[in-house]
């Protein structure tokens, strides 16, 4: 079946511009995560959506970063006034519901490689 789809796969933007990154999770997956992967930093958690609950935004590095998830499916990560340090691969992952008695692994997309010049 279809996996997690992210677009664009690559994005080059000028410093100061806004960018939007899109994630289409696997159908039926109510949990959705955004991570950032950069050299030497591993996978940095950004934000987590779980069903209709308020998202966990604790990983967003600054108020230039925001994300929303419309209709419990597609998610958009927006970075305003991009800076060079925002350059990284932005990964989206989805899974079935997470909870105390039920867990499922994350399924990752191929990521969006963002380069801020």
């Amino acid at each position: 079946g279809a996996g997690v789809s992210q677009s664009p796969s690559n994005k080059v933007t000028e410093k100061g511009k806004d960018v939007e990154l899109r994630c289409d999770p696997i159908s039926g997956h109510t949990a959705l995560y955004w991570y950032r992967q950069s050299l030497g930093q591993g996978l940095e958690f950004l934000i987590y959506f779980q069903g209709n609950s308020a998202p966990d935004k604790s990983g967003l590095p600054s108020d230039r970063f925001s994300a929303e998830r419309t209709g419990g499916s597609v998610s958009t990560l927006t970075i305003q006034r991009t800076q060079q340090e925002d350059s990284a691969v932005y990964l989206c992952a989805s899974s079935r519901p997470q909870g105390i008695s039920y867990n499922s692994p994350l399924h990752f997309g191929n990521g969006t490689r963002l380069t801020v010049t």
Partner: protein
Amino acid sequence: AQSVSQHNHHVILSEAASLELGCNYSYGGTVNLFWYVQYPGQHLQLLLKYFSGDPLVKGIKGFEAEFIKSKFSFNLRKPSVQWSDTAEYFCAVRANSGYSTLTFGKGTMLLVSP
């Protein structure tokens, strides 16, 4: 909040050598533990996971990991590596609560020379 520490950033091995990648986590409660792998040019995928029960878990491609609660560790092992195991390996932990994020370590890049 939980955190994960992977001991080695880079590991270089020859084929047939044994592998052990260290992973320690910090969290006072019950956790779920994972190892993910990212092969060159591919997306992250699950290698193995521990939720409960037998602390020795087996994953795909001959990998296994042992959860040692007293040491807060979940080390990844493979008796004999192959060139195709060249990849980046990430340990991850999630608190076993109703609403908890998955926290990853910084990853270990494994290079297996033929």
